[in-house]
């Protein structure tokens, strides 16, 4: 498929804009001083790609105030607008001013009749807000290869008389399908400027800048007339005949007979048998890349922090006379350990965000949703929820971030609440050790049982949440507009991944470092008078005292000792630290291999035997289930905080603790009768 050149797009775009900009300047009503432009459009029309192309890395992503709907904001700077004048040599004052516009990327929608909170936000910002708070102009992205499906939104916006510019994307895809779009005729028919752009290759952006500048300086076009006293059906008929006329004028309906390249690929990718096989292969690849490939990089960064950086800091503090003091403890075991933990997540998250961007940009994600829809629908989730849940079995943190592929905010919340129940690899290390200590030759079966329980919890909790909080939320039937396949571009993939990684680091860094420092602080404060701050054994610290106070809560589950309780508290910070924390608590050497736990295993067995009243296997099973079901780690919380907000994050923590405790107690109480 030959991409359309920048020159060709600009030429086409200029032909379709209403007037050269210097003419517009003379009849201008005055552009707003600090203009706000909204990017709107149906899903998969290149809206977010255009947003990234316009704003580069100067982007903030976050939930719209008071909602869980994610909206990106950025600044669009362009100085190449003089090329838009009729002869290309204009140097009028209007053209020479650099363009600087705030841009907001609103959630994708097919119409202004919302079906989800995301679509409702788009409507609210465009129509329901007071005039002064609305965007000064809307740029509506329309896919040239499927114009009819995109013009419904344009029709509704035109009925409101809102200032707007249509950015026609996927012109190369349309051309490949034998569809030639006459932008000039289309612009004339729909009554607003039409600009051809290729945001993936950054073509046509200068023409778009010129057109937006011109449109901002003009009065809003008159609203499209609709039949007086028309009911909803009449109104729809009117819109569709308007759309038909527009498509006919633009020759958008001309179509080359026969299947397209995407159709040929889809014969395999969405097919009844091969579709799921290909999907599982893709998921396997994602899982492998987010675990196997990221692991050496994580180890490298972890080793760098715990090795040279820690040694350097310790030596440096020694030189200035702070060696062995509480300051060294705070800096080395608090700040450096916290930053180190954050850094180990960077390769994992970067890889995850790159993979997500590739899957989205290539068009495969829409197909994955089709393939998994029936399976996920049975537990009340849309097909796309499969991806974060699969990724969760590698690591919950990127899995939470992966929930943003779900278009509906409520679906995102539900899936983000379920992800922590996917048993990540950090938990696996503890399961392997516990399995070896308590189940001997049946260790593998015990570990496998944890995964089965994890899947069962996801199904039961998912159905439970749907039946309670989302009782009135219908499961919409699957209707997905399949975009054409694209080869992902490096620039776009890198840009999207960087923006998301930056957002994660901004939110997670504070939470993780504060949590790690908090644990250090509790372990540094002596519980009894006479101890010295920062030089007290863990068993004599406030941390251990707190664990002793909480331990009776776990007595009905068979692991009500302070050692087990304090380990769970460390596991709240990071499951990776559970085994090392145990080793520290029992003052034994940490085993190099979890399957050969040595003296640590003996200590853990003794502790569980005592706390369970002689039923260590039942207690161990209860402990493993608790470990699987309670809050995975502080980094997951940080990711949840960012994606679904504090209210739902705290709700999730409460739900996880309640469920984990209930299951652990039930398993121990039943288990001690049998084991």
């Amino acid at each position, binding site marked *: 498929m030959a991409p359309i050149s920048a020159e060709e797009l600009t030429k086409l775009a200029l032909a379709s804009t209403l007037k050269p900009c210097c003419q517009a300047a003379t009849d201008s009503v005055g552009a707003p001083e600090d203009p706000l432009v909204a990017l709107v459009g*149906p899903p998969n029309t290149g809206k977010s790609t255009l947003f990234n192309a316009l704003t580069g890395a100067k982007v903030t992503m976050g939930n719209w105030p008071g909602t869980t709907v994610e909206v990106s904001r950025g600044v669009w700077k362009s100085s190449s607008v003089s090329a838009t004048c009729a002869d290309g040599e204009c140097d009028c004052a209007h053209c020479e001013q650099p363009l600087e516009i705030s841009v907001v990327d609103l959630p994708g929608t*097919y*119409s202004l*009749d919302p*079906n989800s909170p995301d679509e409702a936000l788009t409507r609210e910002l465009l129509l329901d807000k007071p005039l002064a708070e609305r965007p000064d102009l809307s740029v509506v992205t329309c896919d040239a*290869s*499927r*114009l*009819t*499906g995109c013009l*419904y*939104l344009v029709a509704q916006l035109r009925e409101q008389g809102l200032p707007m510019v249509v950015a026609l994307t996927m012109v190369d895809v349309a051309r490949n*399908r034998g*569809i030639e779009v006459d932008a000039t005729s289309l612009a004339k028919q729909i009554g607003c400027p039409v600009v051809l752009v290729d945001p993936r290759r950054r073509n046509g952006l200068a023409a778009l800048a010129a057109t937006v500048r011109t449109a901002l300086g003009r009065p809003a076009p008159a609203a499209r007339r609709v039949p007086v006293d028309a009911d909803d059906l009449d109104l*729809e008929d009117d819109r*569709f005949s308007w759309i038909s006329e527009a*498509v006919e004028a633009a020759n*958008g*309906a001309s*179509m080359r007979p026969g*299947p397209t390249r*995407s*159709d040929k690929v*889809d*014969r395999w990718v*969405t*097919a*009844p*048998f091969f*579709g*799921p096989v290909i*999907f599982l292969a893709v998921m396997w690849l994602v899982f492998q890349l987010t675990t196997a490939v990221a692991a050496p990089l994580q180890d490298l960064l972890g080793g760098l922090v715990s090795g040279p950086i820690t040694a350097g800091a310790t030596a440096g503090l020694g030189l200035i006379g702070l060696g062995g003091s509480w300051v060294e403890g705070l800096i080395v075991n608090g700040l450096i350990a916290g930053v180190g933990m954050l850094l180990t997540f960077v390769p994992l998250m970067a890889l995850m965000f790159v993979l997500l961007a590739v899957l989205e940009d290539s068009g495969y994600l*829409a197909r994955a949703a*089709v*393939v*998994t*829809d*029936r*399976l996920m*629908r049975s537990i009340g989730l849309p097909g796309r929820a499969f991806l974060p849940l699969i990724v969760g079995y590698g690591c919950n943190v990127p899995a939470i971030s992966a929930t943003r592929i779900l278009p509906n905010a409520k679906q995102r919340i539900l899936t983000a609440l379920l992800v922590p129940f996917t048993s990540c690899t950090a938990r696996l290390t503890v399961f392997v050790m516990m399995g070896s200590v308590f189940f001997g030759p049946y260790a593998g079966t015990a570990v496998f049982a944890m995964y089965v329980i994890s899947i069962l919890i996801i199904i039961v909790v998912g159905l439970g949440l749907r039946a309670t909080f989302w009782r009135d939320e*219908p499961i*919409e*039937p*699957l*209707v*997905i*507009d*399949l975009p054409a396949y694209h080869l992902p571009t490096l620039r776009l993939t890198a840009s999207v991944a960087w923006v998301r990684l930056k957002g994660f680091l901004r939110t997670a860094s504070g939470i993780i470092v504060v949590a790690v420092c908090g644990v250090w602080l509790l372990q540094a404060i002596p519980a009894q008078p006479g101890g010295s701050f920062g030089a007290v054994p863990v068993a004599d610290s406030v941390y251990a005292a707190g664990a002793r106070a909480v331990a009776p809560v776990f007595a009905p589950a068979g692991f009500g000792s302070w050692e087990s309780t304090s380990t769970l508290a460390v596991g709240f910070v990071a499951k990776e630290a559970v085994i090392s924390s145990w080793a520290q608590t029992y003052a034994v050497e940490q085993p190099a291999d979890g399957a050969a736990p040595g003296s640590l295993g003996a200590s853990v067995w003794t502790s569980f035997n005592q706390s369970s009243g002689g039923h260590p296997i039942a207690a161990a099973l209860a402990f493993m289930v608790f470990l699987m079901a309670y809050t995975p780690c502080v980094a997951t919380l940080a990711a949840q905080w960012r994606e679904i907000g504090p209210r739902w994050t705290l709700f999730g923590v409460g739900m996880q603790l309640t469920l984990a405790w209930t299951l652990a107690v039930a398993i121990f109480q039943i288990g001690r009768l049998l084991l």
Partner: protein
Amino acid sequence: MLTDWIFYKGKAILTFVNPGIDLASAPLGTPLTLLGTEVESGAAQRLASLGLRVGSSFALIAKTAGGGRVALVAGSRVALGRSLLAQLWAEVA
């Protein structure tokens, strides 16, 4: 099944209107015209905004995993879930 009221000798009688075939049974690769839908309003609106409304022409071009279909509607490829197929009625154009 699509129904309609007709009046015969002063009485209203509920009759079955030619429903055509539901999309689960419709042939692939054949031009179709949508006769009616029984889907809830949100989904109907979504379908309509994609160009699939009563009277519009389209074709089913592929079966998908999970029992759905891909419809070619005004140049767009629209994946329709299995649950939806039985609620959409069409005739061969």
